């Protein structure tokens, strides 16, 4: 019971690892952004689910209700979601620009095909450009 009682955290962990894996393993920039979104969302769920109190009601004052859920995480995560949307927007915009400039958005390809271009002002050196 205790095991299942924390199911929200397991979901968070699974989502987080999927997102993290996608960010690291995928070269395609759109996919990277998707992974990033998953990763962020898992953090949001962590916050929100922590605000839920068993048997608690919505946090609106009314008669006959003693236990309320914690509204603060919702407020915080509202802000974080906005931040997440903004990040996604900037990331996508950059991908579009990169696509215009290079003709593709595969990170690995970009650093392999044109190592000079990534650091226009220097000779290629092995240890810097692959992240």
């Amino acid at each position, binding site marked *: 019971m205790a095991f299942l009682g924390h199911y929200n955290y397991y979901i968070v962990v699974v989502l987080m690892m999927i997102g993290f894996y996608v960010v690291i393993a995928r070269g395609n920039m759109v996919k990277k952004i998707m992974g990033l979104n998953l990763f962020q969302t898992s*953090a949001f769920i962590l916050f929100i689910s922590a605000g839920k109190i068993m048997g608690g009601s919505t946090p609106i004052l009314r008669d006959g209700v003693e236990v309320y859920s914690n509204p603060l995480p919702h407020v915080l995560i509202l802000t974080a979601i906005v931040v997440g949307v903004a990040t996604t927007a900037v990331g996508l915009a*950059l991908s579009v620009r990169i696509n215009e400039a290079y003709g593709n958005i595969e990170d690995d390809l970009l650093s392999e095909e044109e190592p000079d271009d990534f650091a226009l002002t220097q000779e290629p050196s092995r240890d810097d450009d692959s992240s």
Partner: protein
Amino acid sequence: MTLIEWMPFSVLIPLIAAPVCALLPGRVLPWTLTFVSVLASAVICALVLPMAVGEGPLSYAFGNWPPPVGIEYRVDAVNALLALLISAIATIILPWARVSVNDEVPDRQGPFYALFLLAMSGLMGITLTGDVFNVFVFLEISSLSTYALIAHGKNRAALLASFRYLIMGTLGATFYLIGVGFLYIQTGTLNMVDLAERLPALADDRAIRTAFGFIIVGMGLKLALFPLHRWLPGAYSNAPSMVTVFLAATATKVAVYVLLRLVFSVFGVEFALAMPFEEIFFTLGAVGIFFASLSAIKQTSLKRMLAYSSVSQIGYIALAISLISTAGLSAGLVHIFNHALMKGALFMCVGAIVYRIGSDRFADLGGLAKQMPLTMLAFVLAGLSMIGVPLTAGFISKWALISAAIEAGNGYAVGIVLIGSLMAVIYIWRVVEIAYLQPAPDNADMSRRREVGLSMLIPLWILIAANFYFGIDTRLTLDIATRGAEVLMGMTP
């Protein structure tokens, strides 16, 4: 209005000016608005600093919601100094930046300067706030605008660098957010003072330790702690020169500040000592100094070389922090300040060179001392500060750091600091040798190779003068840093 009520305006003025600035047409208006608001912010910080140092923590509650319910701004010796550093550097950079920005971002300067204002107000906000979630919000404000600023670079590679920084930066911020989430779940508060009171009782709690780990990794990414530094060289070397100067002087420093504040003020020294904090930071700092310096030596262009040098300098700060002593923290804080002065000056020189000859490759720098004598002399002087030659700010940093290491009985730390200094001699002097002893390359366009104008030289030389001033008169830096270290070590924020 008392002085303390003016304090939030150092963040708000640039924040409010930003959207206005974005709408302004032409080149003169956006720049003027930016300069005025940044200057106002700097003036406020300069006025608040003596009070914060003298009277201890000043507190301001937003919207009159008393903390810990509302968001609190809390200013003491540490963040007052840092806030002044950020706003003062921004003020000095702007006059320098005008011609450079005209060259690198010819169109739509309104939005560009708006982004700069946002980035700056974000950094100020991180510094001044006393609320851990608020830190996240401002962190993202400054990061998002920084990504966009970097993408303004002339080369298309700037887009790639920006994207890579975006991925790493967002990961770091989210790590931090998760850490904050754990803290909130266990304590029910987000206010730093409140957290500091509640955490000691929970010192053995596994969730709190996890939170500590997440926050360290998240901030480690933001401050480019070796080996989480991979985003930095690309971002620094492809961004517009002005952005590079600003980022190098301030952005990573703010991340260091957050780390210091949380580790020492919120979690507390005992908690940090119980965790393997010391060992991790010492190892990463030492390895970072060595390998980043080595990379700097291998580079063949100025911006990348200095970017790697920045990574190694962060290693010094990490090393200083890892000593977990007042002397060590004070050395770290002094180096945060002094490094901003020297790296700012060095990147300004590079910006001036790029503005004139359109390249920062070593191969193109031959004989430049003849055509740009004042810029190159400034480079040499700032480089000396970087090496840690006496009478410069860098020497004070080195002295403080080595004394702290000797005091802690850590001979390895002394050794690695000295090795790092000697490696700095190599990478700085390589450039000096090329600029002073080698003839100009055959294909050089001599008509472009001449000294930059006064608008660039004056800010540059102000920073150079500051490098020497703070190498001789250390009342401002060393004393406040010591006070700040005491605050961090011994008291709640």
